[in-house]
């Protein structure tokens, strides 16, 4: 196993954020309620990690009103998608003996 962890994206390499980004990777978009159920994070925890991913430009956040109720929809950006694929490659390389 390589000791070089410079290639590991620290934004993604956090369990909660990894769950969020993995979930968004397999869909086109999803709202916070869906992500909360799938990741089993609390609302505050989820919001905090979403903000970090948004600041890193890995996800785009859209807020809108649907049937007079607010909905926050999240979508992986192209950069986010590439970053996740790179992260997976690097982890795989690190784990390959």
């Amino acid at each position, binding site marked *: 196993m390589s000791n070089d962890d410079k290639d590991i994206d620290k934004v993604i390499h956090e369990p909660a954020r990894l769950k969020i980004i*993995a979930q968004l990777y397999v869909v*086109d978009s999803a*709202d916070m309620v*869906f992500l909360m159920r799938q990741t089993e994070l609390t609302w505050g925890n989820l919001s905090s990690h979403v903000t970090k991913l948004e600041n890193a430009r890995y996800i785009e956040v859209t807020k809108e009103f649907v049937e007079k*109720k607010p909905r926050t929809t999240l979508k992986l950006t192209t950069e986010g998608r590439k970053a996740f694929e790179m992260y997976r490659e690097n982890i795989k390389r690190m784990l390959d003996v």
Partner: protein
Amino acid sequence: MNDDDLAKLEQNAFRDTMKDGLVELLGGTMLLFAPIMAFQSSFIIIFIIFYIILLPQAIERARQKYTYPRIGYVKLRIKESDTNPKPFLLLLVISILATGIVTFLLTDDVFNLYNWVSMLPFLFGMIMFAPSAYLVEKSGSKKYWLLGLITSISGFIIAYLTSVYPTTDVYEGILAFCMLMGISLIVGGLVRFLYFLRTYPILDSQEDAVSEQ
């Protein structure tokens, strides 16, 4: 997080979209009224508008009111393989061949168009393996094979009864098949919808609290 893990996440997301039973309601309604569209050409435009515009909009409105507040909103990715027609065309060829074989076994005459029309329930039943296979692949749940199996067996039974007890109207068999399948899907969809409403309460979203401030 390997490819299998990601595949499971995608299947979970797909299963989520099926939980409310509204897809079954949509499919059942389409099956129930399809024969009218097919056999009464004057209704074609009305039903195309109904099927393509009104019904999907009604389903989406129902989802916005009942489904998304309970389990959240997700839009699935559409892959290239989802729009590839080759598997469906292959299934269609197999279904037609199987129908030919059944027609021969039951009537001894595959060149009589009447016999083929009376076998339409079986053909349609076999074609239902297409959505069956799609649902199995997308959801990871093998129970969806039952859809193709039940429709094929039902189609065969109706076709067999039509050949043994011929009717004055050759289309009665396919009408009976569409009604039976349509009503079954609608009832199944309604049961699933009511169970969904009971099982999943509306979540207290923090977004509501923030917006009220």
